[in-house]
């Protein structure tokens, strides 16, 4: 039996992720991993999932989204509420079961909002679409700042701008979620990465994926071929929202507290930076860029006050270097394979 090339590539991808996981686990077990890095492992997993899922919209579907952190926010808050509810109301003690269920809840809620937001958003094109996603991201943040949730026995209470709820508060308006147990674990983080890769690679290599890319490359031609462009764009957008929601739940449950302010425009932009830096449409590029750029500000701590300034300079220089024709041709000369990649990246680059 001969496997398809895409299947082989996918298997290699999963193998690399599993190998990376085993290396990390080994380093942690043998105490070879610095504490600072260990503390960042789960956020790295989260940002990888965020970047890969945003790449589905920006790279594969070709629409610029500036509100991805909004879905992360919905996932984080619904996941945190679910986790506390399962523990307090349903008495579900097992942390791992709660974590997995909460991630699913986070993904489901983000998916619902993905549909609601996708319907108006996907009527628009280009920068208009981008600005509407930005607007939704900001609306989500502003509204969450006014929401209060509490659990009282089996009942879940919610109020707008009124903290006087019966029972114990879970989400406390601007103070964010509180009293949640930090239950996220690294294995679940890696499983989420594998799941994301599985979903995205399968989607990309499926009939639907080809339809999505055809709509990106030439909308009119795709429509002429009988492809329902809105339907396929919606598919990519909602899948991406679900994955971002799951990442959000993993993120939220990694901390004992987090606030809505975390999921502002800056975070959406940060994830976009991962995607663009890793190469638009290039899944592995997103993964590596997300991991490295999450670690980078921590590595720069030795620079003290100049840390964020240097981070900015590195970001600019990397963008200039990776787009410099001389450096590009240099690499192209060294590795021939890259030519194909570049053609791909060039196409994805028309995302706007």
């Amino acid at each position: 039996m001969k496997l398809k090339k895409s299947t082989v590539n996918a298997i290699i991808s999963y193998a690399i992720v599993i190998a990376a996981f085993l290396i990390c686990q080994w380093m942690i077990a043998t105490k070879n991993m610095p504490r600072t890095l260990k503390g960042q492992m789960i956020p790295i997993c989260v940002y990888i999932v965020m970047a890969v899922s945003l790449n589905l919209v920006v790279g594969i579907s070709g629409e610029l989204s500036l509100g991805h952190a909004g879905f992360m926010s919905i996932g984080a808050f619904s996941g945190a509420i679910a986790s506390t509810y399962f523990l307090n109301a349903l008495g579900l003690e097992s942390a791992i079961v709660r974590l997995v269920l909460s991630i699913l809840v986070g993904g489901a809620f983000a998916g619902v909002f993905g549909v609601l937001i996708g319907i108006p958003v996907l009527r628009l094109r280009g920068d208009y679409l981008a600005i509407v996603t930005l607007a939704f991201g900001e609306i989500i943040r502003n509204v969450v700042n006014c929401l209060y949730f509490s659990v009282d026995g089996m009942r879940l209470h919610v109020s707008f701008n009124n903290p006087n709820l019966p029972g114990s508060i879970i989400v406390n308006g601007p103070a964010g979620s509180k009293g949640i147990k930090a239950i996220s674990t690294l294995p679940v983080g890696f499983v989420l990465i594998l799941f994301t890769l599985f979903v995205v690679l399968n989607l990309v290599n499926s009939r639907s994926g080809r339809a999505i890319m055809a709509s990106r490359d030439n909308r009119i031609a795709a429509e002429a071929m009988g492809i329902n462009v809105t339907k396929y764009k919606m598919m990519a957008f909602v899948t991406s929202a679900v994955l971002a929601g799951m990442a959000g739940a993993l993120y939220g449950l990694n901390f004992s507290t987090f606030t809505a302010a975390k999921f502002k425009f800056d975070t959406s932009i940060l994830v976009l930076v991962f995607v663009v830096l890793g190469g638009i449409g290039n899944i592995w590029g997103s993964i590596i860029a997300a991991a490295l750029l999450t670690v980078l500000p921590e590595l720069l701590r030795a620079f003290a006050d100049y840390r964020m300034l240097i981070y900015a300079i590195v970001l600019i220089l990397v963008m200039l270097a990776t787009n410099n024709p001389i450096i590009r041709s240099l690499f192209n000369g060294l590795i021939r394979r890259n030519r194909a990649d570049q053609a791909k990246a060039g196409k994805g680059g028309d995302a706007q």
Partner: protein
Amino acid sequence: MVAFLRFLINGISLGSVYAIIALGYTMVYGIAKMLNFAHGDVIMVGAYIAFCAMAYLSLPPILAVLLAMVACTALGIVIEGLAYRPLRQAASLAVLITAIGVSYFLQNAALLIWGANPKSFPSVFSVGAIRLFEGELVISSETILTIISNIVIMIGLTLFTGRTKLGKAMRAVSEDKGAAELMGINVNRTISLTFAIGSALAAVAGVLLCSTYPILMPTTGSMPGIKAFTAAVFGGIGSIPGAMIGGILLGVIEILGKAYISTELGDALVFAVLIIVLLFKPAGLLGRPVREKV
């Protein structure tokens, strides 16, 4: 009724600041097809320079504004030359990310240079306020100055792009770079010029923003920057009158929304109105719908 009038005037005043910032966004977008996210931070730099000129060098406000304009123009040209020009052939998203890098850079450089302690911006224009309806309606001199500046800039820019050779060159480049080049227009210089004008406007916007809302910090420019970007898209990005109308409407909606609906929801209302408008006018208020061809 007086209350409504007052909110309307406040809205127009706030909107005028957005409009001037939005002009910078829209001009750069029109010509370079890039979202210059560092624009809001150029505003902040302009305000800091004007602040230093007035508070430390005791220059008169008008000189301080001119100095800020010169400095921001230079800054705009340098940013364009060092960070954006090398990416002229690259994907537009790559330039967007560089712009974000520049934005981080400016904010953190400002933090190192001017410190984190907020600066209280001096009033640039101290003529008494106008009082109407027996003191019920007070219009401050800053409000009047902002609205007048806005009108002057709008007329100036329309004349510049419509009547002058350089302005026509700018329009030609924004229409079709290749064809403009063939007609003997120096595209790079025209783009630099656009950045220069946009940045000079940013300096003016910075001074107006901070004299109406007198707090200056390294992050002062970011939120007005995002709002102005929204305003530019609202009006139809690339269109000068669009940016003006978009900015003013955004300001008015923001103030009226807070006054009559809720202050708790903050900017959520503004963004909700924006979404609704874009659903009915998918290319913004004055934007040209782009016909796609096969």
